């Protein structure tokens, strides 16, 4: 052990940067996140940028931000990015990848963006087998516009536009977009994760890394769904919202691989 690590109290000074074992990824900017306390977006941003760091692709990747809470993702991710119109991220990403096939391209989209207004763009990009990674944050609610019903809102779940709980006879059923896309031959990888526990965060990060590695191999469309929380609009504390994810959302949206490529 280096003797500099021992401070005057005789304990290791773990605060010195050179001894840090946990660091903010290099590719996250210094800008303060605008997300609510306890929101899953911050963690999701962090693990994507950790993957970018680990793969060493900061100068070789283009991200597409959606309309929704993560509309400002490009303020936090220190990479080249484009801000797409609501729902159109997969179309934008398609064109970026098609005109620059040697770059890594991903979109980052919420449930309203990807599974409501952008359903056509999502399904057709997937069906064409566009060689892109789509990170899909499913928190079952519209966050940016303050808590309206999303296509993925659970049956019975109260939102500002389903104030008596989502009635499937009136408002239809939650859309399981992952299961839907897994059916398409152009899709190589569909996997569902969560960021509510440390173990789940690790698995989610591995899945994102897999997605980029499959893209490098030219295997086609990857969807990494992250079941997340929205403490502010669920009107819960961060801990309660994580419990809701564990007890209500994950049973409806089970975690794990829905489709995986056979990699030699």
């Amino acid at each position: 052990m280096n003797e500099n690590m021992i401070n005057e109290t005789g304990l290791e000074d773990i605060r010195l940067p050179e001894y840090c074992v946990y660091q903010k990824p290099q590719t996250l900017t210094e800008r303060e996140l605008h997300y609510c306390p306890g929101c899953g977006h911050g963690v999701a941003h962090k693990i994507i940028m950790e993957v970018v760091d680990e793969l060493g692709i900061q100068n070789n990747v283009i991200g597409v931000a959606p309309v929704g809470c993560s509309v400002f993702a490009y303020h936090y991710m220190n990479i080249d990015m484009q801000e797409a119109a609501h729902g159109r991220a997969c179309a934008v990403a398609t064109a970026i990848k098609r005109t620059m096939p040697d770059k890594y391209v991903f979109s980052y989209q919420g449930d309203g963006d990807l599974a409501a207004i952008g359903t056509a763009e999502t399904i057709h990009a997937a069906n064409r087998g566009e060689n892109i990674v789509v990170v899909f944050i499913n928190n079952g609610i519209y966050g940016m516009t303050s808590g309206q019903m999303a296509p993925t809102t659970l049956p019975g779940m109260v939102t500002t536009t389903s104030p008596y709980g989502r009635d499937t006879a009136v408002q239809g059923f939650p859309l399981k977009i992952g299961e839907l896309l897994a059916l398409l031959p152009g899709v190589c990888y569909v996997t569902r994760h969560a960021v509510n526990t440390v173990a789940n965060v690790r698995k989610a990060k591995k899945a994102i890394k897999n997605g980029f590695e499959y893209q490098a191999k030219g295997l086609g469309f990857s969807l990494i769904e992250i079941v997340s929380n929205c403490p502010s609009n669920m009107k819960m504390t961060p801990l309660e919202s994580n419990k809701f994810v564990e007890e209500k959302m994950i049973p409806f949206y089970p975690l794990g691989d829905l489709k995986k490529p056979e990699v030699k």
Partner: protein
Amino acid sequence: MGQKKLMKGNEALAEAMILAGCDAYFGYPITPQSEVLEYLAIHATKRTGMVVLQAESEVSAINMIYGAAGAGKRVMTTSSSPGISLMQEGISYIAGAELPCVLANVNRGGPGLGTIQPAQGDYFQSVKGGGHGDYHLLVLAPNSVQEMVDFVKLGFELAEKYRNPVMLLTDGAIGQMMEKVELFPQMERIDRHFPWATTGKPKDGERRFITSLHIESELFEKINLHIQAKYKQMEEEEVRYQTTNIEDAEYIFTGFGLGSRICSKAMQLGREKGYKIGLVRPQTLFPFPKKIFAELAPRIKGILDVEMNAGQMVEDVRLSVEGKTRVEFYGRMGGVIPSPDEILEHFEKTFIK
């Protein structure tokens, strides 16, 4: 001298795209412009490696244009009226994010599903905005198959000069008719090295992002003022029009695109009958050639504006002359093309008898 060919307007559009070193085309079939995508599908990728992709909708196509334009690529899409309506959201985003690209509207009759026959009812949509917010497209109005070729090349140059979308407002007749064209030599597809393009963060530079989102009002007003300044510069530098027989003219016929060609014939018939008629043909609809109309107004007896719509460009003609001469309108709609004889008859009824 370039190669001479007999070509259909829509095919000429497509050929010009390939020759201009266009990197990508994203589009969706719609009559009367489907030949563009068909021609590109046969020739483009084979000849230059250009990306050609049939999107699932016009909504998707215009957002693909946004993505590729944001990556600094030379990109173009084409459609016809209902499809262009679907693209309006994306066009507003493209104008807001200041991305260069070329669009072409092979105008058919509306409103609604309308007709597949030629019309000019999308003048307001093209020239006055179309989508939300304060923006303009630079609008070129070809009146021949030759200009379908020339304006694609010019369109890319202007789009890149101003970082602004350029619209070719043409119509079903020019798209479908065949004429002799002289083509320009094949240009290479090159990396244009736009400093703002998202091609991957430079190793020794700042990251780039393409957006039209600005939450702070005062900052966003500044961005709006910057965009408006570009339009002002366009009005000073990019006005294009053609005139015929204006030296001794007592009356002026005016129209754009196909309308201007019919006016030209009507003028000739009128001259044979002894009427001193001249022709002013705007080639840019935005910026509109206000000055030439303003200059002619005090010394002529009147202007007859002919369009294949209910009277749209005529508003800009009236604004240009500021009441200094009489401005009358003649139009047909629903896909009907007016004949030179009926234009002359209307002229005589309105101005002579």
